């Protein structure tokens, strides 16, 4: 096991490579965790989640969670632990008007932002900036000022993803009450995390709806409102994205990838892949 902690002022970046590891009761800081290869299991608030590559998970400072790696392949992961004050300060500087920032610069100490905890797609600028950050740490760079600017940009990128994945999806729900919208999206988010965590297994709609504490019909209707696709289409897109990852990063035969990502037969996988990305899996590889 290789476990490297890099303090960045009061924040911390942890890079780990392991087949087997267990980190119980992590809390006290906001966290962005991502996986570069393999998968890791998390337990938070009685929810079991599995994080695969191409995704990241976010935890609030008050959440206590455990992380477990138990894998036949080496799992490479990175955790960014943000000091609550760093996040509060960042949040306040984005929300408050310039005049207020000048008059009351310490206001951020009064409240810490709370986000919807979920698994999000690791994409766009967040992915690029995290990879740059990892490269600098791998090269032994300990310049706190520079690493800190990467962390600040990670928060900028996270806020953009949060806006598109939570705030605007919440707004697209057809309910009058803001509280209802928030609660529905929170439950849909739990369902979505369940689908992502179990994308390679046989999961049924009844189970997903039950986990979201919604009736099947209500779940189907609101899921489509929020994510503009059915749960089944979402599951298929996750499987195809993971297949892309395996095609890009491994030399597994296509038949094996079909099996790993949970498709039933290679021909339907090839058809879906070609329809989605306008290229066959073989040519994509």
């Amino acid at each position: 096991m290789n476990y490297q902690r890099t303090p960045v002022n009061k924040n911390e970046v942890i890079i780990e490579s392991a087949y087997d590891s267990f980190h119980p009761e992590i809390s006290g800081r906001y966290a962005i965790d991502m996986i570069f290869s393999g998968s890791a299991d998390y337990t938070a608030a009685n929810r079991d989640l599995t994080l695969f590559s191409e995704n990241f998970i976010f935890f609030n400072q008050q959440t206590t969670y455990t992380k477990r790696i138990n894998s036949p392949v080496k799992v490479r992961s990175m955790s960014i632990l943000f000091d609550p004050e760093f996040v509060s300060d960042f949040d306040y500087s984005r929300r408050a008007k310039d005049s207020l920032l000048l008059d009351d610069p310490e206001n951020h100490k009064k409240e810490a932002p709370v986000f919807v905890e979920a698994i999000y797609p690791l994409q766009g600028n967040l992915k690029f900036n995290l990879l740059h950050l990892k490269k600098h740490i791998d090269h032994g760079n300990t310049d706190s000022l520079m690493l800190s600017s990467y962390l600040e940009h990670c928060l900028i990128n996270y806020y953009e993803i949060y806006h598109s994945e939570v705030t605007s999806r919440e707004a697209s729900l057809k309910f009058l009450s803001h509280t209802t919208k928030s609660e529905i999206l929170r439950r849909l988010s739990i369902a979505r995390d369940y689908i992502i965590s179990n994308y390679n297994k046989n999961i049924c709609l009844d189970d997903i709806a039950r986990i979201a504490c919604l009736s099947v019909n209500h779940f189907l209707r609101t899921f489509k409102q929020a994510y503009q696709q059915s749960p089944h289409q979402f599951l298929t897109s996750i499987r195809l994205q993971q297949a892309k990852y395996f095609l890009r990063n491994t030399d597994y035969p296509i038949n094996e990838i079909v099996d790993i990502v949970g498709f039933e037969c290679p021909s339907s996988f090839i058809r879906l892949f070609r329809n989605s990305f306008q290229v066959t899996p073989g040519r994509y590889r």
Partner: protein
Amino acid sequence: MDLEQKYKVVYVTDLQESLDFFLTKLGLKLHEHLDIPGRDRAAVLQMFDGDFLMLLQNEELEKVPVLLYTDDCLRDHHRLSVENVMGLTAPMYSPEGVTIAFPDPCGNKFILLEKRDYTDT
């Protein structure tokens, strides 16, 4: 010889001052000094992507901002911030990638772009 490498020529009014700026503040590497017949000396710097930046002594500056490419815009922004480069802008995200803008000591305007391919991320 890599025929894919490109030269970008930039006019500067003070070669030595510009050279110091690009070497010490931005962190480019000196590739060679050149003597061009009928002109003052020129310097060739290697950029982050392997292409070359030729600084050529001239009485006039560039009329439009010069676009340079980098592999890590946030790193370069940090370097220039630490050196207190006046006129340095904050990193800006665009569909092409992330950019910063800064002037060189002669007054040329530079845009540094880290191209990012978002199609598969």
